[in-house]
């Protein structure tokens, strides 16, 4: 079992593309860490550098306090699950799983024991004699995971392993990989672009953008206290509503008004101290769709309510997604309601201003 540490890790590809910039990260033993970010953010490159598939431009990678920059992949005691499974098409499932052990000259009996044990865990015992082409996507994914398990490596790496599966299977495999982590109690590093996967699976989440680590935190910490506008917008679905406008003092309080004047909100008193320096300046606010509520009486409450016609209604079952245009601003709301609001009729929503986020419009850093 292992602890992985990245110190000032950089990767510059030939041609000058900086894929990873000064990444510092400590992944504790038995931790499940998810690297998440939009495509091209450097998360896969980081993973591949840990695996040893990409050379490190500068900085160091430590596994169990041993610098592994120049250690070839096979000696790092790491197993990786690939996005496209990368099963060997000419080998049976058994041989696919046993291949790494055969190369490491394990005894035949030990190989058989380990493969059967892994197959048991993954429920693929009856597939051992088949070839990858005769398997469904989900089964292939299990074999790919099994190939990693049998090695009993220090660290598991997953490179978007679920992105080729259909939605239902993805949810199922998500839970299974989480279960596997509890069962195996080993360090796992998981790359995905899907924030739902990141939120549901990770002990800690590393959010990356343009090769820079934005924030490292536990899922709920990330959700409630994003360090900047990007993290706030990336985590959560539907994404957080971002509105630019002016912060100003009036009637002894601090108010926000957007450029069209249609959104007028009062900042909660708890935030005043942090907001004071921004009074009279432009600022960005963020409101999560789930922080908007149906106004039962449909009466405007100053500083809390917004009024806008509903353009699209998406009933999700337990909740309803509303798409509205306030002034010139598209806004998404997620309300709990039994009845669907009428389309194109003005509608009043209340905002839980205590959960509002303020971002510096220039640096995009969180103000409060």
């Amino acid at each position, binding site marked *: 079992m292992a602890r992985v540490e990245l110190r000032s890790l950089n990767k510059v590809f030939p041609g000058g593309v900086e894929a990873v910039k000064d990444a510092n990260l400590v992944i504790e033993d038995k931790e499940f860490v998810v690297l998440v970010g939009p495509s091209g953010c450097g998360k896969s490159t980081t993973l591949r550098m840990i695996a*040893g598939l990409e050379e490190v431009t500068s900085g160091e990678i430590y596994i169990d306090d041993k610098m592994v920059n120049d250690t070839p992949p*096979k000696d790092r005691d790491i197993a990786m699950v*690939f996005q*496209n499974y*990368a099963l*060997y*098409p000419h080998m049976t499932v058994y041989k696919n799983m046993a291949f790494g052990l055969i*190369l490491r000259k394990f005894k035949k009996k030990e190989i058989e024991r380990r493969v059967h044990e892994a197959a048991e865990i993954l429920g693929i015992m009856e597939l051992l004699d088949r070839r990858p*082409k005769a398997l469904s996507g989900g089964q292939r994914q299990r074999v790919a995971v099994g190939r990693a398990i049998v*090695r009993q490596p220090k660290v598991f790496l997953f490179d978007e392993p679920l992105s080729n599966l259909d939605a239902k299977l993805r949810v199922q495999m998500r839970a299974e990989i989480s279960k596997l982590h509890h069962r195996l109690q080993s360090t796992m590093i998981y790359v995905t672009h899907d924030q739902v996967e990141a939120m549901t699976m990770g002990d800690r989440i590393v959010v990356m953008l343009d090769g820079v680590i934005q924030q490292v935190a536990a899922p709920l910490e990330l959700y409630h206290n994003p360090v900047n506008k990007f993290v706030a917008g990336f985590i959560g679905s539907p994404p957080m509503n971002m509105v630019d406008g002016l912060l100003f003092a009036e009637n002894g309080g601090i108010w926000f008004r957007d450029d069209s004047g249609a959104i007028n909100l009062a900042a909660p008193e708890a935030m005043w101290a942090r907001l004071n320096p921004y009074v009279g300046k432009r600022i960005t606010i963020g409101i999560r769709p789930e922080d908007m509520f149906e106004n039962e009486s449909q009466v405007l409450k100053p500083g809390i309510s917004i009024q806008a016609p509903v353009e699209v209604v998406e009933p999700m079952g337990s909740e309803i997604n509303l798409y509205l245009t306030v002034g010139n601003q598209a806004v998404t709301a997620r309300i709990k309601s039994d009845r669907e609001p009428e389309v194109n009729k003005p509608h009043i929503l209340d905002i839980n201003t205590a959960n509002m986020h303020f971002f510096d419009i220039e640096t995009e850093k969180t103000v409060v």
Partner: protein
Amino acid sequence: MRVTLAKSAACLLLCGWFAAVALPLGWVFLNSLRSSQEFVANPFGLPWFLTGSPPDGRLSLEELDAAGARHDAPEIDLPRQLRTQFDLLDADGNGFITEEEARAAGLGEAQWGRSLRLADRPGSRRAAWKEVKANYAKAWVESRFSSFFTNSIIVTGTSLAGILAVGAMASYVLARFTFAGSRALFLFFISGMMIPAQLVLVPLFFQFTWMSQAGTRLLQPFGLELQMHDSLSGLIVIYIALSLPFTILVLTGFFKTLPGELREAGIMDGCGEYRVFWHIMLPLARPGIITAAIFNFIGLWNEYLFALVFVNAADKKTLPLGLASVSMQSQYKTDFGLLFAALVITIAPTLLVYMLLQRRLTRGITVGALKG
């Protein structure tokens, strides 16, 4: 409607294609089972050892006379004892019992006359079958096709092994890795296809002379000499060099289609680059390698020009040269039976290899898809 029309048109085309390929092959094979005499009588007839006798009226009286037959001989029944002895009497297996053979067997005048009449009847199946065996025996032994055949096997087999070994390894590296000059190296290999082989014939001949001399000078201290001309190894070197451009073009394209993630999976599993190649990439490239093998085999097995120029000694000749010499020897008196038998000996391995490898080719493509 349109579909069925297109289908039947395709079927018709394929049937035509099949006929164009199969009929000449069948014709060659059938004629290898007939004697020259039969062939002259009717080039498109069936072998007499099957039909038993020539179709009526096909043999002219003169031809029968020439064959020594007594067409006026009355049909007679031979004593059973004599009938079983016929093969024993016919010592040289030509289907006729000559006076000498009869006397050697101690037959009396009366019996000899009667047996002669029986033997003379044209179209004895037994006699025809002996002719057939004689065709192949003559080709294999007298015309030295056993030697040509062995030479062809050695030359083609060794060349093929060399081509595939060098070609597969070079192609994999050229397809998967970029290094300084990799593109130039690829183009250098491929540019070999732009030069007609016939063009390098004469320079190569002189180069071989030079190489033999230089090599021999080098090897002299060890009591060896380098013989590039008139040697199978010289021919093998040429064949490998000439076949590499095409092979590398085909295999590079094939290796490029293989997913690169498999290499990374292999590396994570503990392979070095060589293991990745031997255990993962090479087995996956089997359909491509078999394709290259088939094309190269057919080309090399039938190669004539370079063999003609670089090989003179009779014991070094390959099958195409052997065929040529047979047809040249029989310039004045053509032994068609022998010629066709020689042709069959030459063609058969190609057909065999093609049939065997083709089955494995399709199996290679659909492996996994069908299994399980």
